């Protein structure tokens, strides 16, 4: 089987392919073509030399959805709401997370007020009809939106999560009157209470729907034109993939698919190496991202705010939980007005880039510091394709940082790297310690162009014993896409006391959700379903998602569910209340279409690891310049073993090992590093 993953990034479109018959990987890179992304994809396939007609599956991660929203290039959208609720979407939650900022902005609505129309209808929280749907008011509204040239319509009625009938009928009428419009009904996107968040998620879906739909359509056509006959799949924010049809109906589900490929890969390769508990650590040009994997499973967040919590648009669909900090290779080091050294969040990006890139950058960056410390080889960057300006980096650090702090240039470079490491450690702490997990029980899997450079220092800081450098660390996201399963998440509010649950009814709801979630799966026959209940103590607002089994639901195992909740609560918050009543808020179902496992090749026989050369490098622990051995990763055989300090050079990155770290090469080629040899 030939599977191909194509990941669109800001600068490059990456392709990664694997043929399990020959055991061969291939990859290619082409410049992204922001105005016609599809062209970049076709170019990339052409450049790879792969025969389009032989590709069995093509998995695609795209920034189309998120860019359409951020650049405000979505469709002209109308919104239909329950009477009295016209301003719910504009008002939002009325909060000001930036407490002292007199110039704060709340979210900027994607639908103007005059295209938000009220429909006569009202449901109670129980789902009973208080006022029946007035279909005439729907027709009037739809005709008004038609006159205004609206291209997409979102519908969100109060309590539709419990009874979607009014929304469904409204959808039918709107589709009849506006046959070409893209229609999103809130209960189809998110059957969860909290009207503003559901409304916002539905509006975002409608707003980006026509653009993403058009994109998927043109991608399919262009691929057909070059002879592609295989299956096309699209990456989602929840770490799974979906068919193009589902992507067209729920484009909002692909919004944050960018970082998840690497996290899926961390989970998969961690398990393959015997590490079920890992923290994925990805560091690129502008940010670093951390995400926790427990028992081989990614951790999920219930939703997020596009553009940040303070002023962003809420999108409440489950996504892989990622903590991001503004520290990447291009992050700028600067001195603030009172003389304190700061790193980031401003980034020199790819253009002008770090000083050493010779692209006109004048501000010292983390990459410049790494070059000065000898950790990056100016002559071997990107396999030597790009010669770096080490002297420029040194001059920049001296004038902008070292002189101001009265430090030597080397000490200033070390300070820049140390501050960046501390910032990234906080991100790793946030996904672990802050949620009750001890990082010492995890291994760190490093990816991204800068991840392997910094990971051993971060591991030391947090007492993480093991670091894994996977194959293709700078192409890791695309690699993860190759192995991602199909996945669909559905949530439904089901509000009741745990003591009074009608489990027969709950099982029926579960079956309905399974049917809905399974419908979008290509691999239905091998589908697996996971169930979680969102539980809380009566009186609380926030919930914990507790995994349960279908058997537990069928048997009405209240005690088992209750105990699991208390245990999880204790783990998370270090206290619990076994005597307090517990209530159910939501049911969550994830449908997984498991993909056949790819058999990855093994490395050649173990050989003695020999450094290719040495290079001068600085390490704070040594306190001086050392002659550091440099290994070429491509020359390392399975079972090879060596100790730090050492640098391991490969095409897209360099792994930096400190004094005392011990590296062993796994049978499948990953570098397993024991920090301090422990």
């Amino acid at each position, binding site marked *: 089987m030939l599977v191909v993953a194509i990941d669109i990034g800001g600068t490059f479109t990456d392709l990664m392919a694997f043929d399990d018959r020959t055991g061969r990987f291939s990859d290619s890179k082409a410049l992204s073509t922001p105005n016609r992304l599809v062209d970049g994809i076709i170019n990339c396939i052409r450049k790879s030399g792969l025969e389009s007609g032989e590709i069995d599956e093509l998995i695609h991660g795209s920034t189309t959805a998120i860019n359409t929203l951020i650049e405000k290039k979505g469709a002209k959208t109308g919104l239909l709401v329950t009477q*009295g*609720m016209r*301003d*719910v979407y*504009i*008002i939002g*939650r*009325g*909060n*000001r*997370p*930036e*407490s*002292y*900022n*007199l*110039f*704060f*902005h*709340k979210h900027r609505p994607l639908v*103007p007020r*005059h295209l938000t129309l009220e429909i006569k209808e009202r449901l*109670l*929280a129980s789902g009973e009809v*208080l006022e029946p749907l007035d279909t005439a008011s729907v027709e009037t509204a739809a005709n008004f939106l038609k006159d205004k040239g609206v291209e997409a319509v979102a519908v969100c009625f*109060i*309590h539709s*999560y419990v009874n979607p009938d009014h929304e469904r009928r409204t959808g039918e009428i709107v589709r009849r009157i506006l046959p070409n419009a893209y229609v999103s009904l809130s209960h189809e996107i998110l059957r969860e*209470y*909290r*009207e*503003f*968040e559901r409304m916002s998620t539905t509006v975002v879906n409608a707003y980006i729907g026509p653009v993403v739909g058009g994109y998927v359509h043109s991608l399919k056509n262009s691929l057909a034109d070059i002879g592609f006959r295989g299956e096309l799949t699209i990456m989602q924010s929840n770490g799974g993939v979906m068919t193009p049809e589902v992507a067209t109906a729920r484009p909002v589900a692909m919004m944050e698919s960018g970082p998840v490929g690497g996290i899926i890969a961390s989970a998969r390769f961690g398990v393959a190496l015997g590490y079920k508990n890992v923290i994925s650590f990805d560091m690129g040009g502008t940010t670093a991202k951390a995400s926790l994997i427990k028992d081989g499973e990614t951790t999920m967040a219930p939703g997020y705010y596009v553009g940040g919590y303070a002023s962003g648009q809420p999108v409440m669909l489950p996504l892989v939980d990622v903590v991001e900090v503004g520290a990447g290779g291009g992050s700028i080091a600067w001195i603030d*007005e*009172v*003389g*304190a*050294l*700061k790193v980031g969040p401003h980034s020199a990006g790819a253009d002008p880039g770090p000083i050493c890139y010779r692209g006109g950058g004048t501000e010292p960056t983390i990459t410049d510091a790494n070059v000065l410390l000898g950790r990056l080889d100016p002559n071997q960057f990107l396999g030597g394709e790009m010669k770096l300006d080490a002297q420029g980096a040194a001059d920049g650090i001296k004038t902008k940082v070292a002189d101001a*702090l009265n*430090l030597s240039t080397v000490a200033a470079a*070390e*300070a820049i790297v*140390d*501050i960046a490491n*501390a*910032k990234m450690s*906080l991100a790793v702490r946030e996904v672990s310690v*802050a949620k009750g997990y001890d990082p010492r029980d995890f291994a760190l899997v490093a990816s991204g162009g800068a991840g392997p450079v910094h990971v051993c220092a971060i591991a030391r800081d947090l007492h993480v014993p093991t670091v894994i450098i996977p194959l293709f660390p700078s192409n890791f996201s695309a690699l993860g896409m190759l192995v991602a399963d199909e996945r669909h998440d559905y949530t439904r509010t089901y*509000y009741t006391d745990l003591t009074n649950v009608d489990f027969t009814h709950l099982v029926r709801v579960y079956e309905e959700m399974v049917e809905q979630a399974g419908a979008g799966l290509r691999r239905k026959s091998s589908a697996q379903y996971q169930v979680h209940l969102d539980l809380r*103590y009566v*009186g*609380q*607002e*926030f919930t914990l998602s507790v995994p349960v089994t279908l058997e537990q639901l069928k048997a009405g195992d209240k005690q088992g569910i209750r105990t699991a909740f208390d245990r999880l*609560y204790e783990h998370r*918050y*270090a*206290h619990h*209340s076994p005597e307090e009543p517990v209530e159910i808020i939501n049911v969550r179902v994830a449908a997984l279409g498991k993909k056949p496992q790819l058999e990855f090749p093994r490395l050649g026989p173990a050989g003695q690891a020999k450094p290719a050369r040495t290079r001068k490098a600085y390490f704070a622990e040594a306190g001086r310049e050392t002659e550091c051995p440099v290994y070429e990763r491509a020359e390392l055989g399975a079972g090879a073993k060596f100790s730090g300090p050492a640098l391991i050079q490969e095409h897209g990155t360099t792994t930096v090992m400190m004094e005392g770290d011990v590296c062993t090469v796994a049978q499948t080629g990953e570098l397993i590093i024991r920090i301090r040899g422990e």
Partner: protein
Amino acid sequence: MDARVKEANLDPVTLEVIRNALPAISNEMAADLQRTSYNMMIYEVRDYCTALVDVNGDLISQNVGGVSHFVADLGVLITDGVKRYGANGFKPGDVLITNHQAVAGQHLNNVAIYVPCFFEGELMMFAIVRAHWVDIGGLSTGFGAGPDVADPWLEGLQLDQLKIYDDGKPDETLYRVIRDNIRFPESSLGDMKSQIAACRLGVRRMEELYRKYGRPTVVAAIAQIAEETQTKCRNVVSALKDGVYQAESSFDDDGVLKDDPVRIHAKVTIARGSMTIDLSGCSRERKAAINSRTLAGARVAYKAITAPLEPVNEGSFRALNVIIPEGSIMMARYPAPMVNWSSIVPTVVDTILTALAPAMPDRVPAAHHALLGGAVVFFGVDPKTGRRFVVQSLEGGGWGGRPSEDGESGTVSVCQGDVRNGSIEGIELKCPVLVESRELRTDSGGAGRFRGGLGIDLTVRNLVEGRWNLNQPRRVKCAPWGLWGGAPGGTAAYLLGTPGRNEWDMVDASRHPVPAHSRVVVRTGGGGGWGKPVARDPKRVQWDVVEGLVSREAARERYGVVLNEANEIDEAATRALRQRLEAQAAGA
């Protein structure tokens, strides 16, 4: 440079790492508290603060995003506690609880819990959490107590620096006294548990920090960070012209003594980077429960203009001198009643900012609605379940127009940061009410070159009988004012419609009993306009009319913009009308 800094040999890396770590600890405490709390005042309204305070009462760090008027006000509690017990009077397993107004100076619902933090046997600091309990006993639940609650005994249970855990052992007697004297004990005691857990978390994190960097380094870093923060704030003030700036506003009355306005006055003196905010001109303490002991008004205003996005520590206010004489409404003497302690604070903030407008014209907005709500409070017993319920939500109002943009609509006051309104579906899931509408009120934003934001009308029908809190807001005569020629915003009110009556009534009462199927409109004010309305771009006025934020009549009367039925601008008529309005204004 501070002597301690040299001694500890504080390098820039360690300093920066500790600078990031300290607010991260307070924020982690806050996240822990919020997710485990039982009452919406904590998890939705975020009416709490989490902090680290040293033995002298100096603030080391405080969470970001909580209620703003809790800024750096915990020091007095610690100073008082240390005075009572002595610096040697604390043991590692102690947990203290206090809400006593003689020192705390806020309503009794705000219960502070704190835990000492030791390192190598030495008392280093305290982790402290102040949070709004849903009930503290007394006359009524939640916000139920109105301005007529005449003293702290009517208000509820007074806890004066008591150890609820002594050396790790819980005081069962105290616990039972609390449990038996508050409504919803399961909720408040659940919150207390969360507060204690959050404090212990903060202590644990500080111990880790001391262990990692050593005691002298952490101590030196804390001092250095405060010093730098002070410098940053001072730099902002240094750029302002030295001088004395004043402004004044008022509340119509205090809710008990009618027709006696409550005067708010701010005199701000800027002299070479230092700022003195003198609130001596404000009203004396009142018999009505709008008293407090708080520097919050001055501090929130100072923070907003110096370093709004930076974390808070003691250095944030070192270059600020606040004068409030004993016996003032904001420095009231025990046992002056304090149920609605914070109700005047947002207006105090606006008054200080307005005083400063001539010194920093490009950074001061017109006045905002300045009320802590639209507070929605309805309570009773659900006949179906036999359980007590409380509906609570805080609805935002309009913010003032700003020097380069319109004010935001429907947003909480300057004293409430990340306070969220109740979700309509969430309210209806839990309580027997129907929220009929939550809508922006057309024309409630003050006219101006940059328009004030709009206020809200929230209409609620109670499906069972119960009691409403309908204390009328007292900022009608002094509506949210405009700046530089802008017009004031609309004013707030509560309207009650009982079944069988065709009119809305302006009831002014706490715990007002109503029959089932009564309706209440919770109306919030709009923001003032910034700059002259006739200077507003007619296209913006036109868009506001299309959007229904401004009526066609108001476009004509207030802005001098003439629109036809199709909302097209009549340019000639607009020009003529604007000239006339300008001339009228000049003549007046």
